[in-house]
């Protein structure tokens, strides 16, 4: 199949970027989107041109590295799919695909389709962990957790930290990511001792990093490859309210 691509090329943060046209003939429908980019890069390098930089690692939807906006949708058109898991058979012969990086002030440009997502790491550093010493691995059933909380914590823990929620949000809000991390720990006994500090610090950090406010558009839930529900954001708000005593 033939695919027309318009790919964002940008040398670095200080040089303005632009969309560049590439046409790929003979795209194999079984290729993943990233494999098609690999192929395009091979061609570019054979022609002595600069390859297109893009982020990827596991290519099986679990690491959260890949980050492409395809025709205006973070991770492309399919629900619950990271862009590395998107296959070309989902497209039609002759389709045009515009490829852009995550765009947010808090995710500064590095090159082409690669942006700096370390703001997420700093939100995690602000409280997305448990610092009490838990000792050696405990017996699996020594600490009973009811099914309801265990399931919810597991759902929230599925977040792969890709940042699609920010990319798709009209406000560039990081609420879904931050909410998922906070709510995951709020449902587990290990998260309890630092529960209040955690939500206050992580919410503050998210604003400090330059992410926007949430307007409840719920676009984040629609693009999230891990299908994190905006209930995580509602829970974050309840947690924050309950942490009033910790606010200075």
């Amino acid at each position: 199949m033939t695919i027309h691509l318009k790919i964002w090329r940008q040398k670095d943060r200080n040089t303005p970027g632009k969309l560049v046209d590439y046409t790929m003939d003979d795209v194999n429908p079984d290729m993943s989107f990233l494999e098609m980019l690999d192929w395009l890069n091979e061609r570019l390098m054979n022609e002595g041109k600069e390859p297109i930089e893009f982020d990827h690692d596991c290519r099986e939807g679990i690491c959260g590295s890949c980050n492409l906006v395809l025709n205006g949708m973070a991770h492309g058109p399919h629900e619950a799919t990271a862009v590395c898991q998107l296959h070309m058979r989902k497209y039609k012969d002759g389709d045009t695909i515009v490829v852009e990086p995550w765009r947010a002030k808090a995710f500064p440009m590095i090159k082409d389709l690669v942006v700096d997502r370390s703001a997420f790491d700093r939100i995690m550093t602000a409280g997305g962990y448990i610092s009490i010493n838990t000792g050696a691995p405990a017996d699996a059933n020594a600490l009973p957790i009811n099914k309801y909380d265990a399931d919810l914590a597991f759902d929230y823990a599925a977040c792969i930290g890709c940042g699609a929620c920010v990319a798709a949000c009209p406000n560039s809000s990081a609420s879904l990511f931050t909410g998922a991390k906070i709510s995951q720990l709020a449902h587990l006994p290990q998260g309890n001792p630092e529960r209040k500090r955690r939500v206050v610090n992580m919410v503050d950090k998210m604003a400090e990093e330059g992410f926007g406010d949430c307007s409840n558009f719920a676009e984040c839930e629609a693009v999230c490859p891990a299908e994190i529900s905006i209930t995580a954001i509602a829970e974050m708000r309840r947690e924050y309210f309950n942490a009033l005593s910790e606010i200075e």
Partner: protein
Amino acid sequence: MSKAATFLKSQVGRKIATGVTGIGLVLFIIVHLLGNLAYFAGPEAINTYSYTLHQMGPILWVVRLGLLAFFVYHVWLGISIWLEKRRARPEGYSVYASRGGASRQNWSSRSMVVTGILLLIFVFTHLYTFAFHDFATAIHDGVEMHDVHQRLTEVFQNPVYTIYYVVIMVLLGMHLRHGVWSAFQSLGWMSRKSNPIIYSIAFVLAVIIALGFIGLPISIYFGLV
């Protein structure tokens, strides 16, 4: 005090405040709507309703000031959230599209700041037309009072004002279609299960409120009452 200030400045606090002020304003307009319905019961009913409100003295002023504070704070939050969003993405997408599905992006949610600002302008013109007006007087049961009935009847004879009013009420419905659901989410009153239920209730409520307000001017204009 500084605790409250920190809370209200945080991104979560701002949302909670938007929700609280939004719900406060919704409760007010529901009461306002019920009051308007008194017109259908004739001049005496609506004039006496207005008269009774004005007799409440200090309570009325407390409510008015509270309402003003909620309104100003709500407007300020709405506009500042919008300004913040523009700052948070200096370079936009060449192509942007909603994925659909769980997304609540639509004509209503995307235009909150526009419908909001138009509502703000409307409130000024509305107060000018009805609150700061030199009313004629009517006498019911020997008590002299503002003839609100006469003023309403006069204003909604005017096609321009009637159309303006109807259009704004449609915009209010749009604001509340997203707003009512959004306020629940902002206050953390949301679960996976209740989400679609509250979203549907918000739609029904928005339609009822908009149609409720539209009913009066339309009825007067077409001489149905």
